[in-house]
């Protein structure tokens, strides 16, 4: 519908719905179409309108990225427990319980909070480490004019921001917003016709789904498959954009993608190695937390960012000498993790 209103009709058009992994899923489909030799030039485009006057309606939409029958119960239990905890805390401190905006927050924030707490208990990671990751995102965004938020934040400012679902504060969570991003993918023949100019090579495009049982190590599985396809390892990646719907998302994926050992994601961020100028800059764009998360567009916004760095056009946030870049875009919730995930590895043309 949206494309025909903008001059594109008659051609094969597939509508892709894969929750937050929609954008990268569209790119994976475009890549596959070219690989199959069916087309030589394919558009992958994602657009999202999340923001509206009815906040509750927006928040309700998120639950459809999960197994609704299962998740509703889990979230209800969690929120019941949280309500009691806040009331107890209020009794002790004498402070009033701060009521949330009507509509509350997306259930994914609760799921991420649960994951963060488990990680903190198991590996000793801290709320402050999550704040370091969020502050990095906000500080990076000051160099990205296309980000939804472009203000800096200190670690303390992140820590003391409004609580969403402990240990997550508002500054550690992606905002509600709108947006659109697109990419054009082509094969060798088309490339020869138009010239390689500012093109970038797709070394790997992998889509996987989560598992109901067991660990649902979807990110480890999809990253491994991507590394194998590209013939590279995590040590070869110069810059990455990962799915930081919350700061915990980034902490966790840093481990799962092999940039640091499992359990070390918090300490690794604290060391500064994921900042621009560090060993593996992650989310130089500001990530979902600061750049924003219009669901279907995010995956392609990650690609926009990485291609910009590979072209050497990222200005003040440029990762110098970036040659190989990696994007991780996850969506929905199943079992113990994401329901869908796509990983892309891109390489600068010589």
């Amino acid at each position, binding site marked *: *519908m*949206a*494309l025909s*209103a*903008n001059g*594109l009709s008659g*051609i*094969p*058009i*597939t509508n892709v719905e894969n929750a937050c992994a929609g954008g990268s899923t569209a790119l994976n489909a*475009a*890549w596959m179409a070219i690989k199959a030799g069916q*087309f*030589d*030039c*394919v*558009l992958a*485009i994602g*657009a*999202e*309108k999340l*923001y*509206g*006057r009815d906040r509750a309606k927006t928040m309700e939409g998120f639950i459809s990225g999960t197994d609704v029958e299962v998740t509703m119960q889990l979230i209800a239990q969690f929120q019941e427990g949280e309500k009691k905890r806040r009331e107890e805390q209020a009794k002790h401190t004498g402070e009033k319980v701060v009521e949330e905006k009507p509509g509350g927050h997306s259930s994914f924030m609760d799921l991420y909070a649960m994951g963060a707490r488990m990680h903190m208990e198991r590996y000793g990671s801290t709320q402050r480490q999550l704040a370091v990751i969020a502050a990095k995102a906000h500080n990076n965004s000051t160099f990205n004019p*296309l980000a*939804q938020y472009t203000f800096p934040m200190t670690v303390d400012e992140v820590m003391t921001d409004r609580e969403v679902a402990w240990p997550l504060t508002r500054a550690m969570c992606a905002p*509600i*917003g*709108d*947006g*659109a*991003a*697109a*990419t*054009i*993918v*082509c*094969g*060798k023949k*088309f490339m020869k016709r*138009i010239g*390689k*100019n*500012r*093109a*970038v*090579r*797709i*070394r790997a*495009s992998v889509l996987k789904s989560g598992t109901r049982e067991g660990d649902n190590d979807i990110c480890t599985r999809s990253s491994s498959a991507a590394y194998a*396809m590209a013939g590279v390892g995590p040590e070869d990646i110069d810059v990455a954009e990962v799915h930081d719907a919350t700061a915990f998302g980034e902490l966790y994926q840093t481990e799962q993608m092999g940039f640091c050992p499992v359990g070390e994601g918090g300490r690794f961020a604290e060391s500064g190695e994921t900042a621009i100028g560090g060993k593996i800059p992650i989310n130089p764009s500001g990530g979902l937390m600061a750049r*924003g998360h*219009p669901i279907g*567009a995010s995956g*392609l*916004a990650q*690609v*926009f960012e990485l*291609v910009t760095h590979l072209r050497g056009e990222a200005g003040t946030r440029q990762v110098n000498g970036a040659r190989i870049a990696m994007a991780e875009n996850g969506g929905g919730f199943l079992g113990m993790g994401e329901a869908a995930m796509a990983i892309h590895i*891109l390489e600068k043309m010589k």
Partner: protein
Amino acid sequence: MSDDVYIVGVGMIKFGKYLDTGIKALTGEALDLVLRDCGLSPGDIEAA
């Protein structure tokens, strides 16, 4: 094998809260940007 597929254009609009801009307009802007980025026209796109 993986060498045969390329990204030739990228485009994105500034993300934010656009109460009065509809999905068709958001899509159109991103489409415009990506085409301009690589100097292609809508007629070059074979599938989407």
